[in-house]
């Protein structure tokens, strides 16, 4: 009969209305500025640069290889390579970014820069409250604002940070093994040079500085 369905519906909506005052499940809204939801570990917002140690200027993992700059779909990364080199975590001489800017107003949070980085140096942050009155300078982040410590990375994404550490430890072990092998080869060559033929020396001299300047190639 006409009306029974309407009555049923009215009862249903009334239960919903009254339930919002008693049942937490019926009013799931979190009123944001005052209340906050705990972020999940998978949260990713904008990229930041990881640095080891306490000094962001010295400890940046970035070697200014510019892969992320080339891969970035909206082209929001701007990098200027340094003229000099410095020692990285493996003890090798590397460039470092003289300028590293990310325009957060252009960034689309796609995480491709993180995917392509071979140095575990650019990662996604969970920070999202960047509202500013200056829409040009206010959202253009330079390397000082982008640099955040490894401890911060461990705090926001512990699983990923542990993986990064494992990768870096493996790289370091490889580099050390190679250095050791090179040193042994060098010692052997020196011993050989010392004994019978001094003519073999130019080859050994070419070989010697190589491990220091060896920049890892792009993983393709």
């Amino acid at each position, binding site marked *: *009969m*006409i009306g029974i369905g*309407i009555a049923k*519906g*009215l009862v249903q909506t*009334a239960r*919903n*209305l009254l339930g919002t005052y008693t049942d937490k499940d019926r*009013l799931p*809204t979190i009123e944001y500025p005052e209340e906050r939801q705990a972020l999940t570990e998978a949260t990713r917002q904008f990229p930041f640069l990881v640095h080891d140690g306490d000094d962001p200027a010295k400890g940046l993992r970035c070697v200014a290889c510019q892969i992320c700059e080339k891969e970035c779909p909206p082209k929001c990364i701007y990098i200027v390579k340094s003229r000099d080199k410095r020692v990285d975590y493996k003890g090798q001489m590397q460039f470092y970014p003289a300028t590293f800017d990310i325009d957060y107003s252009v960034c689309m949070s796609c995480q491709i820069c993180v995917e392509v980085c071979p140095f575990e140096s650019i990662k996604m942050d969970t920070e999202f409250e960047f509202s500013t009155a200056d829409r040009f300078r206010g959202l253009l982040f330079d390397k000082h604002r982008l640099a955040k410590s490894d401890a911060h990375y461990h705090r926001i994404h512990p699983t990923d940070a542990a993986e990064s550490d494992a990768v870096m430890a493996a790289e370091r072990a490889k580099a050390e093994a190679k250095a050791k092998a090179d040193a042994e080869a060098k010692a052997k060559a020196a011993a050989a040079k010392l004994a019978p033929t001094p003519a073999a020396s130019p080859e050994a001299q070419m070989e010697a500085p190589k491990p220091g300047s060896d920049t890892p190639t792009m993983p393709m």
Partner: protein
Amino acid sequence: MASLDQIFVALKDWLVAFVPVALQPLAGALLSIVAIMAVFPGIFALTTVVERKLLARFQNRPGPNRVGIPLTKIRLAGFGQFAADGIKSLTKEDIVPRNADRIVHFVAPFVLVAPAFLSLSVVPVGRNMAALDFRETGLLFFFAVGAATELSVFMAGWSSRNKYSLLGAMRGIAQMLSYELPLILSSLVVVMMAGTLSLATIAERQSGVQWGVVHSWHVFTPWGFAGFLIFLTAACAESNRTPFDLPEAESELVAGYFTEYSGFKFALFFLGEYLGMFAISGVAITLFLGGWNAPFTFLDWVPSWMWFFGKLVGFILFFIWLRATLPRLRVDQLMDLAWKFMLPMSLVNLVVAGVWHLAASWPHLLRWPLCVAILALPYWLLSRGFQTRFKTRTYRFAEESRPAPATAAAGP
């Protein structure tokens, strides 16, 4: 308590006495106008907030709860929202389409608001508290003025030069004309039984006592109850409230006939619609729910105007509840409901009222079942017709494109 009941009447008399005798009728009229212009838009302002908050709650949201007193931390649970909305609509740009009929476009919102105020003026909001008490034509005046809103709807839709506006206006006209008939026929029952068109007299007639403590509201009779339900449904349609909001269906017609209105004119349309709802609720209260009468004799000490406004608030809340519950009807369903269900039922109700009147001397045990039976039988027959028409829907194309179950899984 009698003084509190008549406090506004006494106040008006006291104020009018300051004016020379020749001007006293004019001053009295002006005071009534001011009262109506202050009270009902005030209720409208609060209703907009309450409606938004309640609808939000119905949908498991908290609703507007931020706007309070500016420059302070006081939030008033969001009840400052109507002031913000009002200021916004007042300061917004008033856009008129280039091809619109400018004069008609300008006049339409006022043509909607003026009849709404006029129809509020005949509603008795308390004992001796009707601004315009037409002893012979009160209800007739209400329906005549109420019909003018249809003109405004079509003026707005036609002058906007917009297909959505025109479609909304067409729908509005069709709906309002269709539902005017059950509306008037269901209220005609009350006129038959009360023997008067004066709304104040109809309200007074319901102050009798039956069953010991209960006031003899018309809704406590078979014809009154049926008439009340028909009137309520038709009132919903007349005021374009949600199961019948086809003229301004947001999902189909942007905003219907006031698509091309912005700023204060839009706010006027909004105001007009709500005032129309208050007026028709007020008439429903007067005709069926005892007007300003208390439900029980032991509650008679509460002032009459409090009863009226209490019932009005009840009506507003019920309309909000309906809006949160029912989906919008389709145009053909709307017409079917009006012409194939409500019109026959209101005609049957006229017969029931006649039987009730003729059987006045019969014992209650005979009179009640007879009248209920006369109503229930066509109700059952008519709704059976609807049920056969609106069977469980089959989604033909969706069903056909679905892969055949079980047979595919049985394969290798």
